[in-house]
């Protein structure tokens, strides 16, 4: 059984291990103890503050394996990116060049540097320990954030986006970076990736190409990976598309990984989530009545006390029947307000 809750300082060593495991490509989660500590502190501050409009808050959650008590995964939310320095992406736009005289009608894709996602909420890449990359844990960790957003919608913008890790070749090189970024940054991908995680992003504006990049002028290897998800992130990607996230032609400026976005109200978990009272039963009663084996994501509590777990349960008119172990895990009693969605 797993539980998702906001991160706290005691999670620092576990988070550091996760960051090391994740390696490069996770810009927002560098294996740097100070930065991780800052992230926890920032999340705690956000949870303790009375927020009326989304600002520079960040929220960090951990996935706990209840069997051992270990932190085995993490995921995050940013209330609004691009406040300190613009949030850059490439927008793939087609430039149409047509000559009726020659009967040519060319559509040339070009990459336009933009910061269209500045001012938007973001789900940060999720990391899960290899042994726990099962559908339940992944779905729980990913979607727990959506229940948090549903509960605290004033803290987020209407639109939400996620950046997916881009493809790299068998040596771990990003062909997109090799063909484009390295000419402008004069450093290797790893360093640029690290810097954009730890430093102000100002250097990006300083060094990025100012003019649109015509895709056909890139190497064919680079062209091939534009908007392609790294195989390690394929599962995450599937989960997100399932939720209702869509690719709208934006890619990462370093590795060309796709960005997917959605209006919060259109996301499956948020649209379908219900809220109501907790009705406590015993495990055997639930098992007996739950003939269709329905499992639910169940969340309870506000802000710092926010908890999400998954369990078999029975949806009733007045609320949701859950077993006593689940209620204990969520630290709630009968009659407490909870939210739930089908797992």
């Amino acid at each position, binding site marked *: 059984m797993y539980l998702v809750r906001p991160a706290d300082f005691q999670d620092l060593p576990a988070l550091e291990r996760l960051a090391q495991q994740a390696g490069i490509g996770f810009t927002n989660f560098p294996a740097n103890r100070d930065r991780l500590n800052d992230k926890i502190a920032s999340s705690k501050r956000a949870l303790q503050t009375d927020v009326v409009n989304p600002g520079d808050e960040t929220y960090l959650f951990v996935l706990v394996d209840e069997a051992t008590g270990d932190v085995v995964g993490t995921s995050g939310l940013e209330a609004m990116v691009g406040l300190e320095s613009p949030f850059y992406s490439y927008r793939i736009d087609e430039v149409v060049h047509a*000559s009726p005289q020659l009967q040519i009608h060319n559509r040339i894709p070009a990459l336009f540097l933009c910061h269209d996602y500045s001012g938007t909420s973001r789900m940060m890449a999720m990391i899960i320990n290899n042994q726990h990359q099962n559908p339940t844990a992944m779905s729980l960790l990913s979607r727990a954030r959506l229940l948090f957003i549903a509960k605290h919608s004033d803290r987020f913008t209407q639109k939400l986006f996620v950046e997916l890790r881009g493809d790299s070749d068998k040596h771990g090189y990003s062909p997109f970076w090799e063909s484009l970024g390295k*000419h402008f940054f004069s*450093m290797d991908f790893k360093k640029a990736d690290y810097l954009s995680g730890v430093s102000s992003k100002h250097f990006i504006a300083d060094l990025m190409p100012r003019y649109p990049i015509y895709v056909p002028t890139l190497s064919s290897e680079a062209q091939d990976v534009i908007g392609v998800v790294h195989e390690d992130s394929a599962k995450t990607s599937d989960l997100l598309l399932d939720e209702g996230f869509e690719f709208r032609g934006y890619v990462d400026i370093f590795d060309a990984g796709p960005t997917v976005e959605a209006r919060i109200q259109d996301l499956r978990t948020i649209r379908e989530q219900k809220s109501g009272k907790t009705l406590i039963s015993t495990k055997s009663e639930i098992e007996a009545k739950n003939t269709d084996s329905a499992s639910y994501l169940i969340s309870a509590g506000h802000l710092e006390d926010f908890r999400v777990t998954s369990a078999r349960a029975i949806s009733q008119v007045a609320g949701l029947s859950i077993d006593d172990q689940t209620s204990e895990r969520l630290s709630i009693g009968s009659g407490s307000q909870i939210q739930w969605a089908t797992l």
Partner: protein
Amino acid sequence: MMVIRPIQIDDMTSLYRLAEQTGVGFTSLIPDEVILQRKIEASLHSFAKMELNQPANEDYLFVLEDTETGDVVGTTGLLAAVGLEEPFYSYHIGTTTHSSRELGVHNIHPTLVLNNDYTGISEVCTLFLEESYRHSKNGQLLSKSRFMFLAQFPERFTEKIFAEMRGVCDKNGLSPLWESLGKHFFSIEFERADELTALGSKQFIAELMPHNPVYVNLLPESAREVLGKVHEKTAPARHLLEQEGFRFENYVDIFDGGPTIEARISDIRAVRESRLCLSSVGTPKDANEGTHYLVSNAKLEDFRCILIQRATPPGSGLVLSDEEAKHLKVDYKDPVRIVELSPHARR
């Protein structure tokens, strides 16, 4: 004797014969009677214009005639102002720098910037000389006679003048720049694009070319290498113009990356150093030895230019032989323009 003169209406057959010899890639001279006829007429019309407010669409075409055989064996031209009716495109190799003080990085990126900067500027056009006449300084006469015309009629041209030089092709006749840039936007073959341009259909360039600067570093090395480089066959022509003061100012052809070189007319060596003197007809001393000089008359429609040789530098008067005077169409006390064919070695 080899004489430069304006093209005439009855040179049509000769011009066609020359055009047939040029071969692929020589787009300014195509064996097509209609086009050539139009060229000749435009030239006649240009030489006949007496009053000019400013240089416009005049197109001056000259031929090199071997007076012994009466054959026309070469041709060259001058355009008073390009791009006034159809856009004239080039790439300017510009510089864009990006620096991050935070990271101590300072990058200098060359970029190709599409422009029409030569709009309204005069052009020294391509030159063709028959294979069998490529000796005895005929090439230099053909090329530099244009400067004598510029020196005599500067009001018919703009302050600056430029020349386009053929770019580099690989051993398969492909242009590396075109292969890695142009063809993505044109979806036609290089030759066809080149041909359309020559025919004056430049509209399609505006329609198809990328309007944003292209980062040179993103192009493959083969393409980067040919920017501003001339085809090996054009190297002597480039050298000749550079000796006269033409300079590469970072403009290149949008298709093959060949350089455009330019000069202010008053800075061209043959223009600057040429001077007028008065002719007399007689028996020149030490003719056919010593220094070669270009000599032209001061006439417009009857413009003539020849090459003479003198052991002693002529002063304020120039003694011409009967034959020289006849071919220059000058008489006693007519003004003639003279200049050393080649520049002195620089200090």
